[in-house]
């Protein structure tokens, strides 16, 4: 490790703890009674509900439409829409969001999308993916169709399929690769068509030998799909680092991966794309890892979107002790929640119930400038210096240091001997800068509108004055000037 050449810069090697949940097969959750399907599955605009309270829906029916930055939503089960109202959501910081509340029917009726599964045309394929509401399941939760559509006017040389799953504890992608290899490879074939890329590379970290073997076998007849083993090294699964490791190119600052001729998609998304195009199945379920020391039986569950976390826990045998922290996502980048009566969304890859002994110590000590954060930063930043600037509220200077490049991957905070909450500083600074920028834009808009208003008023005033003058002149021309009466003179 000391002198070894690494495919990506920096990075850390957290303990995997994947054996907790990767032994059992994916469990299919028996249909839950109620579902709470959030209209806001990801950043960007929420979807628009197309059902009303009291409507009967069948599984797979469209219940909300997306627009560009958001994806379509479909009913995971048949049932009745109870209401469309706010409900607690499993989002950072807590809070409520608008959700479709559904009471599910025990009988299953399915509706599938009407698709032409022999479609060859790129646009037609993308349209199916869009209709099925497929989103990136690796974490970004960006509508897959929107992302693929951006390749229409660009040359894609390589399709990179991300099977790294570098976050500790999480095994949902691993299980999908092992149990749904046909769907994964099938989805990649469709993606190759949709992006017109000549070849695809699946990158998998070497701590998943079974997945590597199974996918190699599944793709043995595809000459244009290559499976590559990558060293287990966090954050290998971050798109930028993944591209760097597989293609030895860096995505230039401010550019997208498609600008360097690569297109990255997660393995589970590929399976969803396959199901959408081949069977017309919209994206209504996902595999979620439930793990952590406080859970009785950690495992992977395929659950309908909108299932409450408490129901998932119950089907894992409940908690064995107290969970000191509940984390949505992986332990390196996930966020905590305080309430289990919140539903999962399309991007929920894992729910971790961590015991006190698994958590970092809470008290930080002073920075001794040991430089470990600098050497592990995959982006080449100086986290210690940036954090100090943020602590002094000098956000401008920290953004000059490259704050915007920060992935919030947590490598620096993971390694920090002083246990400084570095990621927290950067999350705050990024949010705050975004807010300031928004305020600045708002203020500019207000200024502009105000200026336009005063200009308009001034213009109107001059116009009025001109009109008045013109009228006066007209009147003066037609009528002789009125002479004051004697009574008026007296006053």
């Amino acid at each position, binding site marked *: 490790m*000391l002198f070894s050449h690494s495919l990506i*810069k920096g990075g*850390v090697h*957290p*303990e995997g703890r994947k054996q907790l949940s990767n032994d059992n097969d994916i469990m299919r959750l028996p249909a839950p009674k109620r579902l709470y399907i959030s209209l806001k599955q990801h950043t960007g605009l929420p979807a628009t509900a197309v059902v009303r309270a009291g409507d009967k829906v069948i599984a797979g029916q469209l219940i909300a439409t997306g627009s560009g930055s958001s994806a379509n939503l479909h009913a995971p089960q048949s049932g009745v829409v109870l209401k469309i109202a706010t409900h607690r959501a499993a989002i950072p*910081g*807590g809070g409520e969001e608008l959700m479709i509340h559904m009471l599910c029917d025990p009988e299953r009726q399915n509706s599938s999308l009407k698709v032409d599964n022999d479609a060859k045309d790129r646009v037609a394929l993308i349209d199916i993916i869009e209709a099925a509401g497929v989103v990136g399941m690796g974490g970004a939760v960006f509508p897959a169709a929107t992302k693929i559509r951006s390749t229409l006017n660009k040359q894609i040389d390589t399709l990179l399929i991300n099977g790294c799953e570098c976050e500790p504890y999480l095994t949902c992608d691993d299980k999908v690769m092992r149990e749904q290899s046909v769907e994964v490879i099938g989805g990649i074939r469709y993606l190759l068509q949709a992006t017109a890329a000549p070849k695809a590379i699946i990158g998998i970290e070497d701590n998943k030998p079974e997945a590597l073997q199974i996918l190699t076998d599944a793709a043995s007849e595809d000459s244009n799909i290559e499976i590559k083993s990558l060293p287990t090294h966090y954050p290998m699964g971050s798109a*930028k680092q993944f591209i*760097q490791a597989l293609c030895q190119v*860096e995505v*230039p*600052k401010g*550019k997208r991966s498609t600008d360097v001729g690569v297109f990255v998609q997660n393995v589970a998304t590929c399976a969803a794309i396959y199901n959408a195009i081949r069977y017309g199945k919209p994206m209504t379920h996902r595999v979620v890892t439930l793990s952590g020391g406080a859970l009785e039986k950690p495992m992977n569950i395929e659950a309908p979107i909108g299932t409450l976390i408490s129901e998932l826990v119950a089907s894992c045998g409940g908690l064995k002790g107290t*969970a*000191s*922290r*509940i*984390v949505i996502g992986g*332990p*390196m*980048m*996930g*966020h*905590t929640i*305080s309430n289990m009566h919140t539903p999962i969304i399309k991007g929920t890859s894992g729910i971790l119930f961590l015991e006190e002994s*698994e*958590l*970092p*110590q*809470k008290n930080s*000590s*002073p*920075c*001794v*400038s*040991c*430089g*470990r954060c*600098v*050497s592990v930063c*995959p*982006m*080449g*930043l*100086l986290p*210690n210096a940036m954090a100090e600037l943020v602590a002094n509220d000098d956000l401008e200077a920290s953004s000059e240091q*490259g704050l915007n*490049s920060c992935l919030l991957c*947590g490598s620096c*905070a*993971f*390694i*920090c*001997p*002083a*246990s400084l*909450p570095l*990621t*927290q500083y950067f*999350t705050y600074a990024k949010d705050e800068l975004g807010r300031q920028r928004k305020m600045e834009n708002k203020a500019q808009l207000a200024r502009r509108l105000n200026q336009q208003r005063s200009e308009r008023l001034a213009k109107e005033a001059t116009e009025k004055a001109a009109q008045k003058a013109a009228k006066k002149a007209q009147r003066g021309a037609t009528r002789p000037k009125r002479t004051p009466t004697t009574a008026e003179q007296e006053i």
Partner: protein
Amino acid sequence: MSTLLLSAPHIHSGMTVSRLMRQVILGLLPALVFGIYLFGEQALLLVVASMVAAIISEWLCQKCQKTTIGRLRDGSAIVTALLLVMSLPPHFPWYLGAFGAAVAVILGKQVYGGLGQNLFNPAMLARVVLLISFPVAMTSWPAPEPLFINLADAFTGATTLGAVMETGSSEINTGIITMLLGIAPGSLGESPLLLLLGGIWMIWKNVIDWRIVVSLIIGCFIPSTIAWLISPDTILSPLAQLSSGGLLLAAFFIATDPVTSPTTPKGRYWYGLGCGLLIFLIRVFGAYPEGVAFAILLMNAVSPLIESCTRQRLYGEIK
């Protein structure tokens, strides 16, 4: 269930500052114990007195100044005291050693605000204070008197480096084994083999950065090889340069002090090279036979500059 919402990451490497300090102390132990074995109870008294003085000074400063950074239990005061005594003559009066340790902690660290705030290495700062204030005591080198082994009277009262400076001749009368073990007049913790042992263990444990160690040794080795080839009669051979004085102590334990060295990987190469070169220059051309403390302090002063000049390239940054 706790409702505290805490930020990611939710796992940690487990490394802490006090664990780092403990590992540094462990790394120092072999050479320290051997030094005490060589120089007897007077050396032991010096070590104990300095440690006690450092701990008391640290405690007092933290009591008086509530805003000071760091805790007594982080162990940094003990590391500072040990680094100082390792670089002192073994029979240095214990009360002066205690004074030096207090100087290191109070003037070297606490006046800057506490742990992680100081510009200069506290131990080296204190050593220079002692060298200038008590030149005689700081340059009297007793011959080692180890237990169980009767050494011949082959040892003069000067260190290898001191003898070279006085006589102007590079002839040394010690055998290679005694030289590598450090059985010669010199500072308390100068045993090259044992420093190497502790240092390599620390690199393996990822406590210190190998970059500084390697570049410091290279920074001293290359110029001394060139100088030795030019004038073998007056310049000490490169191997003797490396194994004498505090060079290895500096390379593994002092230059690698995280607080006073640059944080950037590239900066660490330059910092180490600068330290090594300055040690060589001061030894050969300076007024003092040993230049480690001055070299470290000089490089400490430019460390922030080195750091800002060696910023890493950002991912995706176009230059």
